[in-house]
């Protein structure tokens, strides 16, 4: 440091910048890096001392400081790009002073190709190399143009080997030390190649099938090509485009040397395709005798192909694929309806039409879509499949991931615990049922594998929900929440909503309520069977938010996101005594809509003893709304004796409210 004090100001500035750069980089620094480390004042100082450009001046000063007479800095060497590096003896020891790693672009690109080939397991195109480099910070400075040039250079220098041109493909590169033939791509690399491969595979099958059945081969439809591409595991992004397949087929049939032929019939929607050179007379476009027969064969064929019951849409797709199966009656569903039999809950077949027995079975509904299956072998598995899909739908409807996420936003920890336990119980039920179906061979093959996958997912959620931490005060809560949901029948619902819901007042019959509220209020199947009934809490929340007064809407708004599907009020009670007034208010709101005797007692206690006037008012309203004993008398007393004038005024309104007027407060 003493030596630097004797330095000229410009030299001292360069030395200080060098030390800053050495400290920042942890290695020797080039002239550029030293200039970068200089403060504006230091730059000005050096610039005013030398007429040369800044790099020249700095390099000159560094050379002076390196001189043995000074001995303040040293140079550990030059980089491969011929830049000398410097380090301060005060900051770095000579043995620690590494150089910046600089290699040529070509060398980096050869490494890049090696990585890409190793990663992809095949020879790579230029586009593959560019895509591989994209997003990797070590290749961030390589532009596509640089990569292209470097690849060409590396190839000319023998550092990269080339796989011979293949069809429409461009050159494929591998590092020179690898044998290109070992790295030939195992599957098509371009979209057109994929489509062509799918069509060829289908055509071979059609020819084989036709030979076995002693007829001419049928042409291939676009839909079949798309399905085959999916089966082949085509991962080209154009697969997701609506018109991707048909555009590719048009391309293949319309370029200078078409390899396939398009067959277009004015009466049919579908386009047909076959290899170029196959004439119309060499193709079969015939059909069946009756619609029932066609439908029967169609369903059997679709079910055999998909190995499961099929939807109406899939039956239509099968008909589209084979023109001979198209029904004469244009209303496919009507034709199907005349051919169908139903399988009841007891598993017995119930014929719907006497005149078309045993053609198709309707084995159930999933998400409102009927599923059909041919009678005979495999009906048990078909029923198992339907139940599996229904359970899967039930699982999706639970929105377990969303619920688990929502739980983190719950303001009442005990309610979150109750919801988690309820979710765990539901998940365990689904897992149990699925395992039973696999054990009894109701689910086999790929559906059993899918069910196993679903079991793993559901199990994971059940485990996560089951491990939900028990908050303070939650130790005494039940391990399994009450799963029985209190409900309203249609008549009860009508009586409840009639005073506040004008549309219901106009309804003459109770059954019409269903069509009015089916999408708004959750319906539950009663334990002992019978008609679906309306979830009581869901009904109250719906009506409160739709027709309620300010207090009613406010508390419903607090309660609805908090309780979710939990109907066990015991999980709310601990929060009613919480120290945080926000939590107590939310607990009061929840108890207003999840009715219970214990809850009503707690509401009255809150109304009388809570130190927050706002909570006293809400609790009084909630007790009155939930039909607590003596709630009216309590309101009368509070209207006279509560310490807060605001509460007294509100209590008087509650006391004066009769019947449904409590909704409007």
């Amino acid at each position: 440091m003493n030596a630097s004090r004797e330095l000229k100001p410009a030299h001292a500035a360069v030395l200080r910048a060098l030390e800053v750069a050495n400290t920042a980089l942890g290695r020797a620094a080039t002239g550029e890096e030293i200039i970068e480390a200089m403060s504006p004042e230091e730059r000005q100082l050096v610039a005013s001392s030398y007429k040369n450009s800044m790099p020249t001046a700095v390099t000159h000063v560094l050379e002076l400081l390196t001189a043995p007479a000074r001995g303040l800095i040293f140079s550990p060497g030059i980089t491969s790009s011929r830049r000398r590096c410097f380090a301060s003896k005060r900051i770095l020891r000579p043995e620690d002073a590494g150089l910046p790693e600089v290699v040529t672009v070509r060398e980096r690109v050869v490494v890049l190709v090696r990585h890409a080939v190793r990663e992809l397991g095949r020879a790579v195109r230029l586009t593959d190399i560019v895509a591989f480099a994209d997003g990797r910070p070590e290749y961030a400075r390589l532009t596509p143009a640089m990569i292209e040039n470097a690849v060409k250079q590396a190839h000319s220098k023998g550092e990269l080997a080339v796989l011979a041109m293949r069809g429409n493909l461009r050159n494929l590169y591998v590092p020179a030390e690898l044998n290109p033939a070992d790295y030939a791509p195992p599957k098509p690399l371009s979209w057109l190649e994929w489509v062509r491969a799918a069509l060829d595979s289908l055509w071979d099958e059609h020819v084989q099938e036709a030979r076995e059945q002693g007829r001419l081969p049928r042409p291939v439809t676009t839909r079949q090509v798309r399905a085959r591409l999916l089966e082949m595991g085509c991962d080209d992004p154009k697969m997701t485009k609506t018109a991707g397949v048909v555009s590719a087929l048009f391309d293949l049939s319309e370029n200078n040397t078409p390899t396939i032929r398009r067959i277009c019939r004015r009466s049919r929607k579908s386009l047909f395709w076959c290899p170029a050179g196959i004439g119309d007379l060499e193709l079969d476009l015939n059909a069946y005798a009756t619609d029932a027969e066609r439908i029967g064969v169609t369903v059997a064929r679709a079910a055999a192909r998909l190995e499961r019951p099929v939807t109406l849409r899939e039956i239509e797709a099968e008909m589209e694929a084979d023109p001979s199966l198209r029904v004469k009656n244009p209303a496919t569903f009507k034709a199907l309806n005349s051919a169908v039999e139903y399988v009841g809950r007891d598993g017995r077949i119930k014929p719907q039409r006497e005149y078309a027995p045993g053609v198709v079975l309707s084995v159930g509904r999933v998400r409102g879509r009927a599923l059909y299956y041919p009678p005979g072998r495999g009906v048990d598995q078909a029923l198992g499949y339907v139940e599996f899909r229904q359970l899967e739908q039930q699982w999706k409807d639970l929105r377990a991931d969303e619920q688990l996420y929502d739980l983190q936003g719950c303001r009442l920890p005990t309610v979150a615990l109750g919801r988690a336990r309820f979710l765990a119980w539901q998940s365990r039920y689904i897992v149990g049922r699925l395992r039973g179906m696999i054990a009894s061979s109701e689910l086999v093959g790929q559906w059993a594998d899918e069910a196993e996958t679903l079991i793993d997912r559901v199990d994971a959620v059940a485990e996560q929900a089951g491990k939900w931490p028990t908050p303070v005060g939650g130790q005494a809560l039940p391990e399994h929440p009450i799963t029985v949901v209190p409900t309203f029948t249609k008549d009860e619902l009508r009586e409840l909503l009639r005073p506040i819901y004008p549309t219901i007042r106009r309804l003459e019959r109770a059954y019409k309520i269903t069509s009015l509220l089916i999408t708004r209020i959750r319906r539950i199947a009663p334990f002992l069977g019978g008609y679906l009934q309306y979830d009581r809490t869901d009904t109250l929340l719906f009506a409160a938010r739709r027709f309620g007064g300010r207090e009613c809407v406010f508390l419903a708004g607090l309660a609805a996101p908090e309780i979710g599907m939990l109907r066990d009020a015991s999980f709310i009670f601990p929060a009613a005594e919480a120290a945080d007034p926000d939590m107590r208010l939310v607990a009061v709101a929840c108890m207003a809509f999840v009715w219970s005797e214990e809850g009503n007692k707690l509401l009255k206690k809150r109304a009388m003893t809570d130190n927050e006037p706002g909570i006293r008012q809400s609790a009084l309203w909630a007790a009155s709304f939930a039909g607590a004993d003596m709630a009216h008398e309590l309101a009368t007393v509070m209207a006279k004796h509560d310490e807060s004038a605001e509460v007294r005024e509100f209590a008087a309104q509650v006391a004066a409210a009769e019947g449904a007027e409590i909704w409007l407060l």
Partner: protein
Amino acid sequence: MAGTLQFPKASQQVIIETAMMRRAANRTLAVVGGGGMAAWFGRARLGKSITANWLTAEINRRFDTTDPDTFRAIHYEVGGMPKTGGTMKSGIRSIYHACAGRLDQATYLQLPAEALAGQLVHGLRRKHIRLIFVDEAGCLSLEAIRGMVLLRDVAELEHHPLSIVFVGMDDLPAKLCELPQIELRLHEWVYFEPYNLDETWALLAELHPFFAGLDGRKREHQEMVSFIHETFGGVIGEIVPYLRKVDHRLRELGGEPDLTLLRAVHLSTQRDKTRAIQDARLRYKGKLPDGTTAGSVQPQKPAKGRLRVQKGDDAA
């Protein structure tokens, strides 16, 4: 340098009450009584949000249900709202979410803005909330701000005076002054400024024990504080993370901070930032900022010729 990983020490957030914070708090509280509104404006990272958070905590700590002069406050941050084209209801919904929980979509669609405001005032009254800090209010559309003003008016009509403080940057002042309905209801403006050198020195002394022991008469110490002040322009939100980085580096190197270390820590970040931006510009669709492609630019050759020394040299 690239040795084992150095994990940071867990540190608790410490709020240092500054003169600026107390000034902002007192001037704002002066207008709360009558339900007046206020605007806090200033560049990013100057401590506006921290001040709002601190004041909210203080107000809530002193709240007493038996004392009618006390009340509760809420501080929340606006996010994800359109800067233009929002509706009055969207402004009210924003506050509803912060103060009274999630707002049911059906209620939101069904009620007109004034009824929604009345509903929210009911909730605010239940919770004794009379002061709301709307942070990042520069992100709000003019219509959303009008919705908040409507809320204040409805609260006033229902005898529950409510004050809203808009905290933000961007074009907030211009936006607030665009409509007289808003401007004339703003009774207080607080402008947050960067710290000057003396304030920065005092703050550094509070934040870091090393800086607490600095001597104002020593040139080296003056240089260190000046460097920090000039580098970060007295912006507290940038100084604090920088001090954490210095601490982290010191754990690696040992010893005490000096100007070289302070500059080196800053240089590491600044150098990488510059390179990242240059690189992004170079690679973004293969274009340079001036529109030319990367391949078409020739690197500038260094000047050749003899070295010319202006003020003499000690080479000989």
